[in-house]
């Protein structure tokens, strides 16, 4: 187990380093003059020089790379071009809000999606299964920001049941929860369908396996077999897939934040892109990448806890 964890950590570090390299090359090794591309052909020479200096583009590439990495290593993500605040502080303030939204969305999706998938798999091809299948397939690919706009129109603008904008008064938990309901619903709905379909397919496959027949031959009830013996196996691929899908979850949350004008990474990035504030954007990307890799590492470890076969050294 320890060697498994160590190896996963090692791989994660490798992925992080590669991600940083890719990001660096895509952003700094622009063919042509990045300043002209970013500011447009009509920008004055003075503007371009300022841009180059602010991005460190006036220096040779290896120097740029070295600066980039060495600053990262000390936790320095650069400074906001407009407010001159450290990017790390801005991202640090926004991150918890986005994570809260994403996890709430994922949480309710799991609470609903897993039972839906189980019910479907227990009675394949029944009316219930078909209905669940229809609903989950319909919602699975709906862009969450679109859903957010529709929810906004229905519940905030027309019915006025729930607040439309912002994240609620700081310190007022009840208000914050009220502000969280619609965005979390929008972020999670597609995931309900996704998880329900995954769980159904995985559980159905597990229920076909020979050991399930053994348990049935010993008279263990079908429900107990499914829940106690098949579901843990069925959840192994589901956990892995959720880990990989976390990137989409964050992207969804970011867009939903913009729709509901909630403070968070989405609004931060949105404001930054309209003002061409690249350090803020790069910082945001880096921090979320780190978050994603850490989350994936935990799903890997969770998989190993579920599956003893993974723990043995290959």
């Amino acid at each position, binding site marked *: 187990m320890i*060697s498994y964890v*160590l*190896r996963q950590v090692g791989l994660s570090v490798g992925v992080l380093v590669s991600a940083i390299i890719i990001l660096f090359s895509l952003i700094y090794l622009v063919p042509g003059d990045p300043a002209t591309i970013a500011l447009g052909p009509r920008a004055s020479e003075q503007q371009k020089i300022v841009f180059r200096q602010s991005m460190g583009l006036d220096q040779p590439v290896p120097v740029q790379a070295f600066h980039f990495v060495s600053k990262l290593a000390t936790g320095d993500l650069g400074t906001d071009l407009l407010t001159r605040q450290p990017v790390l502080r801005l991202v640090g303030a926004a991150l918890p809000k986005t994570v809260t939204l994403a996890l709430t969305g994922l949480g309710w999706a799991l609470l609903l999606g897993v039972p839906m998938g189980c019910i479907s798999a227990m009675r394949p091809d029944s009316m219930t299964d078909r209905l669940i299948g229809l609903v989950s397939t319909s919602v699975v690919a709906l862009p969450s920001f679109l859903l957010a706009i529709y929810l906004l129109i229905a519940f905030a603008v027309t019915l006025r049941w729930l607040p439309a904008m912002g994240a609620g008064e700081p310190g007022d938990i009840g208000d914050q929860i009220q502000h969280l309901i619609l965005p979390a619903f929008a972020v999670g709905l597609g995931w309900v369908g996704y998880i329900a379909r995954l769980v159904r397919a995985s559980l159905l496959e597990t229920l076909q396996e020979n050991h399930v027949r053994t348990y049935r031959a010993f008279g263990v009830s079908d429900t107990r077999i499914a829940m106690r013996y098949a579901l843990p196996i069925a959840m192994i691929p589901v956990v892995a897939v959720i880990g990989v899908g976390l990137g989409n979850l964050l992207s969804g949350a970011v867009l939903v934040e913009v729709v509901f004008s909630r403070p968070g990474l989405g609004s931060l990035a949105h404001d930054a892109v309209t003002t061409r504030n690249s350090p803020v954007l790069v910082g945001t990307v880096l921090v979320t990448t780190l978050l994603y890799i850490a989350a994936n590492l935990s799903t890997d470890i969770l998989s190993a806890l579920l599956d003893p076969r993974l723990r043995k*050294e*290959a």
Partner: protein
Amino acid sequence: MIPLLEVNDLVVRYPAGSLFGALKGEPRKVTVLAGVSLKLNQGETLGLVGESGSGKTTLGRAIGGMTPMSSGSITLAGVGATGRKDGFWKEMRRNVGFMFQDPMAALDPRMLLSASITEPLAVTGTGRAERRRLSVDLLREVGLSPDFAARYPHQISGGQARRVTVARALALRPRLVIADEPTAGLDLSVQGELLNLLNTIQADSGVSFLFITHNLAVARHVTDRIAVMYLGRIVETARTADIFARPAHPYTRALLSTHSTDTSAGLLKGEVPSLRRRPGGCEFHTRCPIAADRCRSEAPNERAVATDHLVRCHFPLVPASEATEQAPLNHQPVVRSLA
């Protein structure tokens, strides 16, 4: 007479194990074949017998050029190769046909049977029309009607798929066919048909067979000689009748007795050891009913107990006077380019 096929001290190692395992001192390579030597004459059928993990399939695949050799040599009709000499392997492919254990897996599900059968011809550059004509001939030869040419693998039965792989193995008119468990998964009544087909083909064309099987009952009927494998080594080689009448190696004897009504003599203790942790001395000593101290410390050499009867055991189960220590089957040194 030069044997058609000669294998000398063939070793196959696979990379295995993790970095962490290596830190704990575990080997990073698994030796699947630990120095195998054998000869096969034109028109002869040699049975390669052993349990799972004995290396019989790996040996077949190595001779077929599908598994890289770590050291040793293979000689076909006097032309030898030690490594990946392209010219040799080209000649080898032309002269060796291979039948896979699972015929369904050996056929591309998206390819017409006519194309599958004549794939060896396509690779060597035979034209399309010629291939279509030959595929019908080949199908007829293995007892299938020409309309099988236009079918896909999922449209035929397991027994028919087996015949299709026979047809493909014969496509280049090879001198040797390696048949890996050709009867595995077949019902008794179908098994006989396939074995008879192979026999007819051999009678007509004089092809040699390397017949890999775990089924001694089948091997008794269709082979001329048998080589018994255990843990990647040949432990006994003899004419088929001699193996059954006078098995010299305790392992061979145990295998034979599993088919008799009295099983008590055939019971071996314990399990087949892991290839990663080969026992010292004679590798069979952990399960051998007659193991002595010498077996635990010293690996036995191959010795002849009778004409054409070689065994790798310190205490072969034949009168001691008949047994004389002998150097390995082929002792001229061979180039080991891939050690």
